[in-house]
């Protein structure tokens, strides 16, 4: 079963720059409703329900991988489709998924090797739609977010989102 796999297998170390799983910091009334999956994925609180590309004047125009990915690139996220669930040497790893025509969603890989996410204004969680922990977002139960788009790297201090 996927959840039983060692999420750190094949990695000599997870860089300390990789974010901690700290839901208690996000799940408070002053933060939780105003920050979404993009805020949480990038580990960047704006209190604006940030949208890919909006800060760069290049917000996505449709709800497809082909539209949302370049919008995130405009915010200075780095596309890394070959990351294969491995943490980068610099920055941290996020994953973009899309429900075509419906919505997009982001996951982020944590220091413990597992992934977590913040669905919209709801609390941060480390579980998928089946209640399982997430060693790999490609195989997680993502509900309507059926399309796995890509892995991307967030370089701390480089990105600008709003």
């Amino acid at each position, binding site marked *: 079963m996927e959840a039983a796999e060692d999420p750190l297998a094949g990695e000599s170390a997870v860089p300390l720059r990789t974010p901690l799983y700290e839901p208690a910091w996000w799940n408070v009334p002053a933060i939780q409703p105003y920050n979404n999956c993009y805020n949480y994925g990038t580990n960047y609180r704006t209190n604006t329900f940030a949208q*890919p590309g909006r800060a760069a004047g290049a917000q996505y125009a449709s709800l497809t991988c082909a539209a949302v990915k370049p919008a995130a690139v405009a915010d200075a996220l780095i596309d890394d489709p070959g990351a294969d669930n491995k943490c980068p040497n610099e920055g941290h790893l996020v994953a973009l998924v899309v429900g075509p025509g419906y919505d*997009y969603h*982001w996951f982020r890989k944590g220091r413990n090797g597992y992934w977590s996410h913040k*669905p919209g204004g709801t609390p941060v969680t480390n579980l998928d739609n089946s209640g399982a922990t997430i060693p790999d977002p490609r195989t997680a139960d993502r*509900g309507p977010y059926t399309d796995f788009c890509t892995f991307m790297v967030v370089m701390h201090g480089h990105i600008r989102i709003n």
Partner: protein
Amino acid sequence: MTATAGASVFSGRPDPTWPLLEETLERLRALWESLEPTQEPLPMAPVLGYRGCFVVEEEGREWRAFEGTVTLTAAGRRLSRLDGAREFERVVLESAPGGALPPELIGGW
């Protein structure tokens, strides 16, 4: 008296909200009065996808409906009632303007 309705359905995009007509609010109030109280645990919503709908009155009263249970929060108290036919939820979602909700949500009703 004004009220806002909405659906908890998205993650990246803001959830859709819309103003509720007074006549729809009156219908929902009457529906609420017709429902049986319950002490059962609230249905578990999925992490991703549709998680229910809501109505917030200007005065702060708030209803949430999901999978046959309607919950009213007002003045620090929370009451739940059973709505096996999901009529409350249907009325709220059908009050959404065209294009506000994903088609599959409407079509699945």
